[in-house]
């Protein structure tokens, strides 16, 4: 057990390590299967339930595999459900990967993607657009721009603080967050209480209801690129999460990599907010579940995070639109289930703590 002398030159048996990678491959496959099943389930369930056979029939006739036509099912699947489910997949995976990135970069597993104020900024941007009578597209642009503006403000403020490092980033974000929360309150105060204020409140609750093919067409490209970039950057996170000096001693330029990853994750989150409003807890919870399943190493956990986030948000959205005859805003569903699920995750996580 003593630090063996000259052990460096002795014959070393390399570990096969296959047991671990087999397990994580299995979990990845299971997560993928879960996503496919949740999509199928989401296509069937809703206020107008369809049997799996009818859903598959729609795809069959689209691909000219069968001649039978089912116009009702086709409209429900192709116009109402499928685009919405695809948006849920993209938003869920982007939010989860953004959350995992934020957690690693800030070396704090309890961080969620709104740490630097992207949510309050987006809410302010959207509210301002609603009050100035903008169309749905303008509101989306407003939310996206507001989110980036808030994070940019926070980063700029942190630059003016001496010392650098994570603490100044946090403080800058805190101040940026506070500024835009105040501005949001101001817009709400000035808004017409009869129609504008309810519109703002509704928007803040988060929903995938307005999602259609048109939105998918313009947002899917950038969002897929951003999410894939975050997954590819996963190995960098292992080093960045060590601490500034340690990361630099391993040859990683913290000053370049950290802002770059924050920008990537923030862009992804701002896009999801402009699409779907504020959907809380996914970005915080999903990385924890992925870590419990495959371990903390980011190369392994990031793809699982993306899959779990995608499947999880599809399930949550299916609940949101089929639990009641009306529709519960998705943000409420994720908040409620997310907070409850987090209790279970914490119980597992803190088992080792005396």
């Amino acid at each position, binding site marked *: 057990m003593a630090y063996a002398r000259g052990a*460096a030159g002795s014959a070393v048996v390399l570990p096969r390590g296959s047991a671990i990678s087999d397990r994580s491959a299995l979990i990845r496959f299971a997560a993928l299967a879960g996503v496919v099943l949740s999509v199928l389930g989401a296509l069937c369930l809703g206020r107008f339930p369809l049997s799996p056979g009818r859903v598959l029939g729609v795809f069959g006739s689209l691909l000219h595999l069968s001649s039978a036509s089912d116009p009702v099912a086709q409209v429900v699947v192709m116009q109402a459900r499928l685009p919405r489910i695809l948006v849920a997949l993209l938003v869920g995976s982007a939010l989860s990967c953004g959350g995992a990135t934020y957690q690693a970069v800030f070396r704090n597993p309890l961080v969620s993607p709104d740490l630097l104020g992207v949510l309050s900024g987006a809410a302010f941007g959207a509210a301002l657009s609603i009050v100035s009578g903008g169309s749905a597209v303008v509101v989306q642009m407003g939310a996206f721009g507001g989110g980036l503006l808030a994070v940019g403000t926070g980063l700029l403020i942190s630059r003016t603080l001496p010392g650098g490092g994570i603490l100044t980033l946090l403080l800058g974000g805190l101040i940026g967050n506070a500024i835009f929360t105040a501005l949001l309150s101001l817009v709400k105060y000035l808004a017409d209480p009869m129609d504008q204020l309810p519109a703002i409140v509704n928007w803040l609750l988060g929903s995938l209801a307005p999602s259609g093919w048109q939105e998918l067409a313009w947002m899917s490209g950038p969002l897929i690129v951003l999410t894939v970039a975050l997954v590819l950057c996963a190995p960098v996170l292992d080093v960045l999460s060590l601490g500034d*000096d340690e990361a630099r001693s391993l*040859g990683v330029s913290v000053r370049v990599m950290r802002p770059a990853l924050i920008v990537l994750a923030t862009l992804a989150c701002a896009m999801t907010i402009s699409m779907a409003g504020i959907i809380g807890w996914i970005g915080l919870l999903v990385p924890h579940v992925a870590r419990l399943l495959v371990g903390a190493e980011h190369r392994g956990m990031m793809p699982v995070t993306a899959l779990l986030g995608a499947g999880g948000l599809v399930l949550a959205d299916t609940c949101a639109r089929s639990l009641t005859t009306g529709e519960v805003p998705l943000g409420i569903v994720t908040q409620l289930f997310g907070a409850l699920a987090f209790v279970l995750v914490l119980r597992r996580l803190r088992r080792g703590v005396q």
Partner: protein
Amino acid sequence: MTFLCCEGLTFCQPGRKRPVLEGIDLALEPGELVGLLGLNGAGKSTLLRLLMGFVVPTSGEVLLEGRALREWSASAIARRLAYVPQSHVASFPYTVRRMVELGRVPYAGLTGRLGAEDRMAVEAALERMGLEALAGRPVTELSGGERQRVVLARAIAQDARGLLLDEPMTGLDYGHQIRLIALLHDLAREGRLVMLTSHRPEELYVRASRVLILDHGRIEADGPPQDVVTAQRMSALYGVPLRQMDHAGNRFFHHGRDDE
């Protein structure tokens, strides 16, 4: 050509009048085990961080293999200098093996897969630090001393010619302290430069080949331990009256009252 040296190194904390370090000249060579003594806040950590290139000196320059440190790329420095920080905070439950594997990042790249040579280096480092049995454990579940050994194993896997350690004894139990200083001694004899900050002059007396005293931002003494680790200097440095006792190649200090 000197492996690692600095000339006129001065570092001022912004907003403070007195410099933390002032006019430090050092030439460090592979094969040396250099101990750095000094009071808390004397600037020992700052000196290591300057030598690593983590902070930029106010004036003066650090030269690695004859070239200014700022001309090197970060990963080229990392292949030559490894660093063990004073405290390592484990935020995520990476396995011990993964932590040690990160020592190969300067060679394999951030996204590159580890080759056979990298994995050999990782296994050898784990074995050398007696961590094989812990290799699969999450670092968050380890004790402070075990975690310190993991960070050391990572630095060994990094296979750099220079190894700079900031108070590596902190948090280790007595047995591991003795094993650690013996290990550092071996590493230096294998042809590495090992430099550590320490609060244990007696250990340095036995194992170090060279001891520096840092006081008020300046190098007050620099030489072989027999000349530097003396009761007179230690009394002056730490502000307590000390007497020395030499026995079988060791030197012990004890509190000597002035009236004795």
